């Protein structure tokens, strides 16, 4: 066994899982630590990122938005242009390579909006592995296109009817599957959540986003940006967007979380603004919960952001003041979805539109010599029908 690894981000993180999963987590932790310094692994990981996922992703100067808003210069980190249409594939490639090293033949995953499920199903097809995706029943209903995409790729999609039938319930079901089938099964967690080493793994594999954006902005502007904005459900694209700037205090970091119908509405998923310390899904972090510690119901228009917890590293970044987290309502996100479509000709995911909405607000408070990089975590084709529905347009006529 390797030396004891620090599992914590400040007071958050840890490994709160049943004893039955501990041997598996320890093997995974050892394999993950080893892969960081393994040239073969790194070569294969970057080969797939470049040749298969289509990296590096573009850093695009959003001239129309910049001029329209009249504040800071806005650059968009285009994770929506990756193969499968979101940042999720970066992490899935890394974890699936680890799964192969550990001799696993079956991948399972949870998914909210379906982006992580599609990415997992894609890599399972590429690697010739069995694949089963857990998705809340409400999410299979509002993201039917992604369900069919996963099935096309050869995965089995299991609608989870427990609880609210949302992302949290899909994680519960995937954890239960993993506890039973750990011998041949690898649980590919899509967000920066769960027991160690998952949050650190997702950080590592998603950090390619900020490693690239840092090089790209230095090339174009000759300096670091003043602010990074990313949407934040469990926090995978946000931590990837922040990672390479964490040690650069001049770069402000902003996470846009889902305020749903408003922070005071009771229909929200703004964990960092409204949550409290707790231990759930394998990690100490912040959660939306009642005074007894019962996990609360959540709501957002976005199936990718309606999670009652948050990655432990984000809880720590908020506690230390290094990053700031702000709530964006459904209405603000839908307006941003429409705004970026008209201004830049980009249909961004409803999740990413939360980041766009905050970028609009932030840019106006800054000056033209300042720079914001906003991560577009995914593309929005999957959301078109739902946004139409939100606006009262019936596409099924």
């Amino acid at each position: 066994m390797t030396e004891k690894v620090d599992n914590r981000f400040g007071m958050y993180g840890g490994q709160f899982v049943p004893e039955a999963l501990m041997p598996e987590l320890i093997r995974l932790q050892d394999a993950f630590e080893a892969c960081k310094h393994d040239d073969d692994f790194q070569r294969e990981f970057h080969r797939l990122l470049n040749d298969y996922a289509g990296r590096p992703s573009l850093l695009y100067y959003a001239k129309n938005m910049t001029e329209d808003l009249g504040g800071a210069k806005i650059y968009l980190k285009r994770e929506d242009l990756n193969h499968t249409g979101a940042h999720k594939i970066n992490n899935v490639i890394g974890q699936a390579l680890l799964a192969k090293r550990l001799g696993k033949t079956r991948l399972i995953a949870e998914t909210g909006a379906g982006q992580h499920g599609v990415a997992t199903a894609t890599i399972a097809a590429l690697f010739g592995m069995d694949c089963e995706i857990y998705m809340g029943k409400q999410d299979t209903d509002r993201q039917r296109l992604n369900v069919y995409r996963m099935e096309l790729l050869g995965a089995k999609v299991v609608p989870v009817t427990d609880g609210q039938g949302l992302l949290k319930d899909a994680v519960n079901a995937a954890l239960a599957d993993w506890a039973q089938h750990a011998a041949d099964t690898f649980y590919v967690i899509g967000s920066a959540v769960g027991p160690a080493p998952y949050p650190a793994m997702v950080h590592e594999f998603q950090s390619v986003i900020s490693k690239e954006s840092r090089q790209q902005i230095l090339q174009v502007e000759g300096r670091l940006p003043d602010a990074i904005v990313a949407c934040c459900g469990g926090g995978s694209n946000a931590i990837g967007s922040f990672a390479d700037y964490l040690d650069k205090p001049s770069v402000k970091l902003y996470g846009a979380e889902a305020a749903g119908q408003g922070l005071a509405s009771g229909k929200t998923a703004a964990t960092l603004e409204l949550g409290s310390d707790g231990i759930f899904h394998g990690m100490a972090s912040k959660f939306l919960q009642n005074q007894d510690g019962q996990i609360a119901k959540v709501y957002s228009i976005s199936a990718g952001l309606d999670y009652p917890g948050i990655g432990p590293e984000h809880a720590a970044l908020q506690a230390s003041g290094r990053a700031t987290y702000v709530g964006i309502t459904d209405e603000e996100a839908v307006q941003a979805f429409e705004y970026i479509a008209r201004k830049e000709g980009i249909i961004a995911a409803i999740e990413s539109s939360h980041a766009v909405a905050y970028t609009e607000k932030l840019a106006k408070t800054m000056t033209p010599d300042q720079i914001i990089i906003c991560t577009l975590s995914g593309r929005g084709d999957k959301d078109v029908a739902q946004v139409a529905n939100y606006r009262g347009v019936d596409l099924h006529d």
Partner: protein
Amino acid sequence: MTKLFATKQLIPFNVIGDPNPAATVANVLAQVQAGAQLIELGLPFSDPVADGPAVKAANQRALRGQLTVAQALATVAAIRAQSNVALVLVTYVNIPFVYGFDAFAARVAALDITGIIVPDLPHEEAAEFRDSLARHGVDLLTIVGPASPERIATVVAPARGFLTVSPALPQPILGQEIAAIRAASDLPIVVNLPTADTATIQALAPLVEGIQLTETFVSGAAVDPGELARPVTELRQALQAL
């Protein structure tokens, strides 16, 4: 606790408040009447990830009536007022964490709880809560997982009370695992099963000091408590027949 295991124990599991607190009190007292000397009580949690569908449904039934942790603990107090049976509390870690580990330890000590099982608190994370409980004279009970012989010595080192083997694997793996645990610890060993018939109990009896049954006494419907508790007598006899 060791004295309690001088005879082999059949240990019923109940979710507090399923379907209501009064039913839990009546069911537990009926289990005592039927011969149970050690009973497990689960504090309901919104997301009992380590439990199977029957226990998950029991948790949901209990919480549907907005049962609070204070009301659940008051239900334990009501049982304690009528019986001195040994009680073990089962809870997911978030409940005592949010309550405050030390305050929770003091509260359960006042209820004369013998030990606490926390399914999502593995050895590596257990020290803080174990210390809080120890200060109040309550044992944090240890779960030993299947097929992890390399962890047995580490996991049982700080253990007190009794050890739970969960989930119970089929023979002969279970027999080998129990032999490995015996080599590392003198504590009584209990296996965890959802349900069991007399034949299963008799087959396991030579290996262990106790058997926990997590689903046999979970019903949810309005069942006569005496009827629900009846298997205690028969299964206990099977366990102690040797």
